[in-house]
């Protein structure tokens, strides 16, 4: 059954994390997902929650309203966007006064938020909507002999009250997906540690330290690579890995992949099409694809 979704591209993926966008656009259609591009989206507002929460709410409602106008559910590949949009939907559904107020503001752009649409992220889309069995049918080049550490991202699994794609303390869906692609995973004590990404805005050294500490742990435990599902986390672990290593006095050498890049590789898609050229971390070390 074909699933048709509005691709909510957000800010970070669509302005620099092209490896995620390319691999999303390459691999998901192979699973019968039709991604629809819509013009006019804006930031989800999550990065500005510390500045003004009403602004966050407004921006998220605006994006959901645009998708509703096209009668489409929303696919947000970024964990931050997915949280902002999901929280907005929940807050406005439970607070009719706020909904009215936001809708009065949205009238400036002839938009209305109803709150009927669904919001999915890469992880629940793959695991819950498409399903492991279906994914298995498409695996052509199993990722044999590799062991990955997983990074879910704080925004993806918390706060559970809002409804998140996986469990807040024991998330397992990425592991299940990686396993059907033929690779291994293992638990590690730092699995739920934060990448520090949001601190890039005001305390960059600390952000780098957080990422550096996690990468160092992954490296020391003998994983072949790290897999993530959020452009903020990925930017920290991949593009900024060398700098992160410097802050924790470690020479880091950890290949970092988006889950959708591994998916594409296992489906037999060419490396170039999955944006692997943009991974700054040493992904070529693994000789896959």
């Amino acid at each position: 059954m074909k699933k048709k979704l509005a691709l909510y591209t957000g800010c970070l993926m669509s302005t620099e994390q092209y490896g995620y966008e390319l691999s999303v656009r390459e691999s998901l259609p192979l699973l019968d997902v039709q991604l629809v591009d819509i013009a006019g989206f804006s930031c989800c507002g999550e990065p500005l929650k510390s500045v003004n929460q009403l602004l966050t709410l407004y921006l998220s409602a605006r994006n959901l309203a645009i998708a509703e106008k096209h009668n489409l559910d929303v696919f947000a590949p970024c964990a931050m966007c997915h949280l902002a949009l999901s929280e907005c939907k929940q807050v406005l559904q439970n607070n009719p006064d706020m909904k009215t107020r936001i809708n009065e503001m949205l009238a400036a752009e002839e938009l209305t938020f109803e709150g009927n649409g669904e919001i999915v992220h890469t992880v629940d889309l793959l695991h819950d909507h498409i399903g492991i069995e279906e994914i298995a049918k498409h695996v052509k080049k199993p990722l044999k002999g590799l062991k990955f550490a997983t990074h879910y991202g704080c925004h993806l699994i918390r706060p559970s009250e809002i409804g998140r794609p996986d469990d807040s303390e024991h998330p397992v869906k990425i592991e299940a997906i990686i396993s059907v692609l033929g690779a291994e995973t293992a638990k590690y004590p730092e699995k739920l540690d934060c990448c520090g990404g949001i601190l890039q805005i005001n305390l960059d050294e600390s952000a780098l330290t957080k990422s550096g500490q996690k990468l160092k742990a992954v490296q020391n435990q003998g994983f072949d690579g790290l897999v993530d599902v959020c452009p903020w986390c990925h930017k920290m672990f991949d593009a900024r890995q060398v700098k992160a290593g410097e802050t924790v006095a470690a020479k880091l050498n950890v290949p970092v992949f988006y889950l959708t890049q591994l998916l594409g590789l296992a489906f037999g898609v060419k490396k170039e099409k999955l944006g692997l050229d943009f991974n700054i971390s040493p992904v070529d070390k693994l000789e896959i694809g």
Partner: protein
Amino acid sequence: MSITDLTSMGEPQVELKKEINDRLSKLQDEVSDYCYQCAKCTSGCEAHKLLELEPHKIVALLKQGLIDEMVNSDIIWTCMSCFKCRERCPQKIAPVEILFALKNLAVAGGKQVPGKYTSVLQSVLSIGLIQDAQSVTTKDMKTKTRDDLGLPPLSKPDDPAKFQAGLMKIAVEKV
């Protein structure tokens, strides 16, 4: 009409301040009734070891009504919004939400926002995104744009004036 109301942090925003204060006093009531200072929030806090943030102390200070002290402190800007404190509090208190409210209040009160928050905000207010599309360099030093990669045009507000008109209502919104 300009977007300075939201960007010029020098001008205190009276209405907005009032609204955030209301939010905080609601949180204060909750905290006073339920927090028993078990410090579970702090034990898992991602900013605790590295930056000495102690969410249970934030909660205690709120209980005492020492809001100005916190608003004027840099410590509130060390939270990395991992939401572990909110997730794990046995009393369903959310220190992270208190911190968001305190930071919002600092901004509405005209305090200088730290780091790159001003430029991020300015970018969102003018083009709708935290930054415009970048050209990105591959490992073998080739520079590529979205267009080069065959990606569709960047989705962003197509009429910035209209987009800003909506945002302006947040700045001038009367409660």
